[in-house]
């Protein structure tokens, strides 16, 4: 849209590794929220509290989070990264 070439080289943006397209700039992606735990099996009788926690609560650590990103201005794929909320560094090992 504007300043695009300069933007691509900004060091403080995330360089996200799309499994299909490879390393691409953060502006091509949409943040998809924290990685969810496995959806509780609704056919088994789970407690209401567990279900509500699954729906509403995410980890909010000062440190590594696992989160989903959507390559919306690219191949359209979804993938998970691990990122430190203090530094935005993408790390190999996640908290899960």
């Amino acid at each position: 849209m504007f300043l695009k070439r300069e933007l691509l080289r900004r060091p403080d943006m995330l360089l996200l590794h799309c499994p299909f397209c490879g390393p691409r700039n953060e502006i091509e992606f949409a943040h998809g929220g924290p990685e969810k735990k496995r959806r509780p099996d609704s056919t088994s009788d789970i407690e209401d509290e567990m279900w509500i926690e699954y729906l509403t609560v995410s980890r909010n650590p000062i440190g590594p989070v696992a989160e989903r990103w959507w390559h919306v201005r690219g191949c359209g794929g979804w993938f998970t990264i691990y990122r430190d909320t203090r530094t935005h560094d993408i790390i190999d090992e996640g908290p899960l």
Partner: protein
Amino acid sequence: MQRYSIFSLARNAFSNHQSWSKAWRSPPLKNHYDVLIIGAGGHGLSTAYYLAKNHGITNVAVLERGWLGGGNIARNTVTIRSNYMRDESIPFYVKSVELYEGLTKELNYNLMYSNRSMIDIVQTYPKLREIKRRMYHMDLYDSTYERIETDEVRRRIPPLTGGGPDSRFPIICGMVHPQAAVCRHDAVAWSFARAADNLGVEIHQNTEVIKLIREDHNGRICGVETNRGIIRANKVAVVVSGHTTSITDTIGLRLPIKSFNLTAFVSEPVKPIIDVVVNCPDIGVYLSQSDKGELVIGGAPDPGQSFRRDIKQHVFENAVCSMLELFPAFKRLKLMRQWGGTLDIAHDATPIVSKTDIPGLFVSAGWWGGFKAVPAGGFTLAHLIANNEPHPLIEPFSLGRFRGLDFVLEAGTTTAT
């Protein structure tokens, strides 16, 4: 409390302003209080003040990890307004604006409260429909929006020269929220601290809460462990904004809150050029001019959870480029500094002011735009702590709403979504 007035100013001028009494004490830390408030920010201090003033509870300590008023109360864009969307939210913010209007007098502290009004620059029809819908909701609670035509928008905001018929998003009209105001943010923290201290509340800075402690036999909260030792209390309120989950995690309480970073930045000071708060919801930027002449500009939050307080370059450039579309004259302004504040956003984007499953533990969080809510947030939390029952204004803000999946979806009132 030494009253501030023109006479005290004159009197103190004779002693070269060396004999002003301290605005608040630094008393020794006791090991037991009736109520502990974690966080000496706007909400924490106003809670302490209203606890003492309205409920006569003065054996209260406010614990602060850093320095008083150094968190989000120092890291916002000072806009006070009540243009919300839901029946649950609007009366609360109307009350907050009303309390703000009387604070300078009540606390004997010049907040530099300035009723500027806010103008939303409407550039798309979906946004116009959304704001009109809010207008009708707000009308029920004496908060107003009124439509003005483009000529009038340009008359009231002289530097608004962009957004013409050939632009990307031509201006359709403006929506004015006349109740909006700005005030001096530090003074809000300092005035509540001074008034609360005067009523007997103790404020302890550099006192970091490491964890919450529960009674073994009944699970009740019984105090906190700090870097200065264990402090016991019958009731504890967590009022720490973005770090709420860090505190509640220590006791195994999981809250539906995530923390994000929202940043703002200011230009070099210039002569008075804009006397209203300008909000451009369609392109995602808002600005006002401070009393010092700086343009205070804000945009969208950084994507993803964050505890950083800097700005992402592309988020910053998006905000600046959006602003320049409407205000091309600002292109030559130098930007002086930026800051970030931690937004704690609940699952449904509505604040949480509530008891918790742990008896004696209270939480006030999820404000993300909590500056405008400081007086009413403290007023209602104090009521909740004192009576163990929520004030009617915050009944919808309880944690119980998640249990019933009875969400109060409050979004779209800022550029943050």
